[in-house]
């Protein structure tokens, strides 16, 4: 009898340990998928950093391209990207924050807010080249901006709108309900509550969304193909109606359209590194900012 129980116990123990080793293998298999993600990112970053770093120097960052774009720097592309993302956020941030304030502070939750939120999510899924078509038809032709900074900026603004709305809404939601109720109880009107109580506390979150939107806009190419990006311009854009050079478009040209592709490969690598660093830095800033203010929220401050 006793040995019977003991035997059974041993069998169970054995099964358990068998399972445990299966599990260990399984867990490692799953962990490997993340290691693979890390590896992919590592290979991409390593390739671009190792081959692009040698190209980057002061001259590369501050000089325009020379000799049919086979020499010189990428200064106009950096400036162009800076200008166009500036227009993008002046368009997308007020609208996005406004929509988020509407959704979270003003609207009665119901069919209409569901429709707005659904539109936000669907807008986020529209292919970037379709934004390009829309921008070309509306901003370039119907509004008559022509291919320009403003047409491209508005097109990119539409594309980044879902990012700013979502992030702003998340930021507004983290402001405790009691704050609003307390202010209302003191006789404040809705706009006063939003302006003096809710918005100041939501600013870091909104800023995070803005930076994420910026990063997205800075890296997009398809929407600016026909709305204002130029192959090469001898001077910097002098108004919002000028065409511009942009980092992502410059990289596209230097790697596929240039007449001496292998000769300009180093310049393409340098451009890729500058663009990648810019986007990664912006994303990193957003992540850090979000972490800081989430901690603050968690502490109830």
């Amino acid at each position: 009898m006793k040995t019977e129980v003991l035997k059974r116990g041993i069998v169970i123990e054995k099964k358990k340990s068998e399972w445990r080793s299966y599990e260990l293998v399984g867990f490692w298999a799953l962990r490997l998928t993340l290691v693979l993600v890390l590896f992919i990112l590592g290979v991409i970053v390593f390739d671009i950093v190792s081959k692009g770093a040698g190209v980057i120097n002061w001259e590369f960052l501050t000089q325009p391209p020379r000799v049919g774009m086979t020499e010189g720097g990428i200064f106009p592309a950096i400036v162009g990207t800076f200008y166009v993302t500036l227009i993008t956020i002046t368009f997308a941030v007020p609208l996005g924050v406004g929509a988020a304030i509407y959704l979270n502070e003003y609207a009665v939750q119901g069919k209409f807010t569901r429709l707005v939120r659904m539109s936000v999510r669907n807008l986020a899924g529209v292919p970037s080249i379709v934004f390009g078509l829309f921008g070309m038809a509306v901003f370039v032709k119907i509004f008559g901006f022509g291919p320009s900074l403003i047409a491209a900026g508005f097109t990119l603004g539409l594309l980044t709108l879902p990012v700013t709305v979502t992030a702003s809404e998340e930021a507004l939601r983290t402001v405790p309900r009691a704050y609003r109720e307390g202010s209302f109880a003191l006789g404040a009107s809705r706009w006063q509550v939003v302006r003096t109580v809710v918005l100041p506390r939501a600013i870091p979150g909104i800023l995070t969304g803005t930076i994420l939107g910026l990063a997205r806009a800075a890296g997009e190419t398809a929407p600016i193909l026909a709305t204002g990006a130029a192959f090469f311009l001898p001077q910097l854009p002098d108004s919002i109606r000028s065409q511009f050079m942009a980092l992502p478009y410059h990289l596209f040209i230097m790697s596929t359209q240039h007449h001496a592709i292998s000769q300009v490969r180093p310049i393409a690598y340098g451009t890729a590194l500058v663009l990648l660093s810019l986007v990664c830095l912006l994303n990193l800033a957003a992540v850090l900012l979000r972490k800081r203010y989430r901690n603050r929220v968690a502490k109830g401050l």
Partner: protein
Amino acid sequence: MASITEKTMRVIFVFCGLAIILFLVGILYILLSNSLPGLIELGLRPFFAADRWNPGAYGEPTYSLLNMIYGTLMVTVGALIFAVPIGVAAAAYLAEIASPWEREFFKPIVEVLAGVPSVVLGFFGLVVLAPLIARAFNLNSGLNAFNGAILVGIMAMPTIITLAEDAITAVPREYRHASLALGGTRWQTIWKITIPAAFSGITASAMLGMGRAIGETMTVLMVTGNMVARPESFLDSVRTLSAGIAIDIGDVVFNSTHFHALFVAGLLLFLITFAVNLLADILIQRKPEVNK
């Protein structure tokens, strides 16, 4: 005085909310109104005829989108074949197994990968992956559907990981506890309880990944070779719908038949991604309901 400000602010914010809907409707309207002249002039059939997209042909321009649809299909399916299993496995690990520091370490990496601009990924495919593929399969050029599928899969992976992880995390804790209390191992709990319970959310994540893959433009434009011939294998050069639009958008003559035909392609792309996203949206709204 104060009430005027109040009212103005309310109107402004309502307008902002309304604007979002208007933009989405506006995009559909612009696509329709610009593709309609083309559809009226040519009818629907030429866009799905067996010939090629060749709007610049002297005499008889042709506008078939069929080969581009094949191209989009190949790149998308090829991408999802590996991106979905890897993405879901990674999500399961992050949600169920990873220790806090592992999560802290891996999640930003996924986010950084999501942030890599598509043109940079395309450049990588062009200069690194293409020569590798050409050598491995003994081809003249590694610019083909296979290359595109790999890169688009890499692009779709962060979307799938993030959303599938959200779906798995949303499964009520009681499900796991019940399974573990009945003697289930963690492994069994993950595969037999948690993931089935999160199935609609995981499907939605795969669909949103698919939406990204279908619409992805710059990467495929740079790495798939862009031939308009009918592809016969993954090692053939293909042109996707999105890349097809991007190639022609720069020098198309305004209001020409070619111009309208491009909008037909855009409309098709919009409708496909819209349907996919809507379906994913409906799936995401569904909560796990095994217990009812």
